[in-house]
């Protein structure tokens, strides 16, 4: 039953997305930079290491508890640069706006982008505006690209995880996924859960100050923690083991997941980083993370246990053990 159609699942960040990227995009655009399938490319230009990334933001609703599409468009791209170990410097910004969209809402979004760029210490230096016919786009889509500088000696990639690495996350997972879901038409429910949307560049800078030898940094956005860990395990060819009891999840998020039948391991995050750190430097890096505003709730959640084809295991709270797979298909409709 193979079909010539793109389904929502192709954009969910799970297995279908992964296959689409590998089989269509990577096979056609193939080059050593893209091949790494990292959050951004680190280009070597006459001795200067330049990180370069892009992302499009289509979140629905545009405003949600704890954030909005504009803030997300700045922090998301800043974070992709930070995940390369780069200091983010400049962003571009393109708007695709549906005819009839409210100008005052657009102003609100732009103001929020301005504030976010001040917080994340980046300048928006180039851009583009397109207005399309009513119905040709859903309200507003934003694309941002960004560049940043990677210091010498920093070599971070999803394929660099090594046996013995300690896996650290900077705080509780899943709040963005639930915050957005709770405001979506047809699924509305009352909650105090706020999106975790946040810039991670200062946290990453703090971590790199302790050691240049951080192996992997990834932000578990679409597809959640499980999908991110699976991607890293696959590209580094290692097995990762997590302890269920160590994974930080807010009470409210857990309750919402229990109620709705979602697995928090697959929920999107917008202010989280998963770090694979050599065990020798892990305690110091962890300590430093805890001191940063965006890392106060950091937790060690697992470790790299062996070389293999790349699987993720979970030691369950009650003493069982199971495999954690990538997200297959779409758990939630469009989230970011």
């Amino acid at each position, binding site marked *: *039953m*193979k079909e010539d159609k793109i389904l929502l699942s192709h954009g969910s960040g799970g297995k279908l997305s992964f296959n689409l990227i590998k089989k269509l995009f990577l096979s056609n655009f193939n080059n050593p930079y893209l091949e790494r399938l990292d959050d951004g490319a680190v280009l070597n230009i006459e001795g200067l290491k330049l990180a370069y990334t892009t992302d499009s933001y289509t979140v629905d609703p545009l405003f949600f508890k704890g954030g909005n599409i504009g803030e997300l468009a700045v922090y998301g791209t800043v974070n992709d640069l930070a995940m390369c170990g780069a200091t983010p410097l400049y962003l571009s910004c393109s708007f695709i706006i549906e005819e009839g969209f409210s100008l005052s809402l657009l102003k609100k979004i732009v103001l929020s982008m301005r504030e976010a760029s001040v917080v994340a210490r980046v300048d928006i230096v180039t851009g583009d505006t397109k207005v399309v016919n009513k119905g040709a786009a859903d309200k507003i889509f934003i694309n941002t690209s960004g560049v940043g500088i990677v210091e010498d000696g920093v070599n971070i990639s999803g394929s660099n995880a090594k046996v013995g690495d300690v896996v650290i996350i900077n705080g509780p997972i899943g709040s963005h996924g639930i915050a957005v879901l709770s405001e979506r038409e047809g699924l509305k429910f009352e909650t105090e859960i706020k999106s975790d949307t946040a810039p991670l560049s200062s946290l990453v800078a703090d971590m790199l100050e302790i050691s240049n030898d951080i192996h992997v940094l990834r932000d578990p956005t679409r597809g959640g923690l499980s999908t991110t860990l699976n991607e890293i395990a696959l590209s580094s060819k290692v097995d990762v083991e997590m302890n269920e009891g160590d994974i930080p999840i807010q009470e409210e998020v857990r*309750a919402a997941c229990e109620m*709705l*039948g979602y697995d928090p391991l697959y929920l999107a995050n917008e202010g989280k980083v998963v770090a694979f750190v050599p065990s020798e430097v892990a305690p110091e890096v962890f300590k430093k993370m805890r001191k940063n505003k965006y890392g106060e709730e950091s937790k060690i959640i697992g470790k790299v246990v062996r070389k293999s084809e790349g699987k993720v295991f979970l030691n369950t*709270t*009650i003493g069982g053990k*199971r*495999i954690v*797979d990538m997200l297959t298909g779409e758990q939630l409709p469009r989230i970011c």
Partner: protein
Amino acid sequence: MKYVDEYRNKEIAQKILRQVKSLSKKKINLMEVCGTHTVNIFRNGIKKMLPTNINLISGPGCPVCVTPIRYIDEIIALSRESDFIITTFGDMIKVPGSTSTLEKEKANGSDIRIVYSTLDALEVARNNPSKKIVFMGVGFETTSPTIASAVLKAQKDEINNFTVLSVAKIISPAMKTLLDGKEVNIDGFICPGHVSAIIGSKPYNFITTQYKVPCVICGFEPLDILQSIYMLVKQIEDGRAEVEIQYERVVKPEGNKIALDKIKEVFKVVNSDWRGIGNIPLSGLEIKDKYGKFSARKFEVEIEETKESRGCRCGEVLRGVITPHECPLFRGVCTPENPQGACMVSTEGTCAAYYKYN
């Protein structure tokens, strides 16, 4: 989380496991007939924690999985008609019909909306008075009272564009069919918690009296499941066959009268087709003629000829005769991204659980 963490305690889990181990060395087959149990057994790694003589078999407990292909084709046919909005629980959207799925029809332009409750579907009807709204009435006795409530509310509020295409099912006749079929030796049933919260414990009495097979109504947390397994093994070792309620904090022997009354008011009991099992007498719920205007069966559509995926052994998986590994399509042709049968689609399907967690 309060009231949840208490049921996920490692020390207590180990204690129950030791007790199960010391209680019996016999080879024991226990069947769960609820998809949520199947998933929680896998999610918590319970199967591998149990002593090797205790074997858990997944039965026909996932409503998505037991829904016949013809029904999917029927809803797909309706979705292709103009002026229709199909509302459904998320799980149904990927279930393959003979040649298509609702997900693909959505990509082709059909108006298909995922809702979290039947009452949300009713809201869609209220907000779209010029459209015909069909809710996919799939589920066991946990879902049917909510469908009945929506029909009663539609009647009261005169929302006449709301309809339900019902294939709601009753679980206990399917358990009888499995026992009569004798394809698999079942020593005890882990009975569904939420279904039983509605129907109570009486509908299982025939299983213990006529078939002498112990039943325990079980909650959904890991310790609930382990305790229920202990209670079943204890019954087997004691030579008893009774309906016991482990999930006492939710299930009362008499069930939920209000919910049962609503089911009785709106539905009539009919013979029903179960995917992989066939037609089971008096195992389905159809909307009574009295509420006929809310039944989507009033729409006449041409339904394509039913085609089963070749080689798919969902039926045997649903009856607990084989494990997914024994199906030649499993993991090769049949994956969650490209499911051949319903057991791979639903998050509560046996094949999906084996694929995801094993």
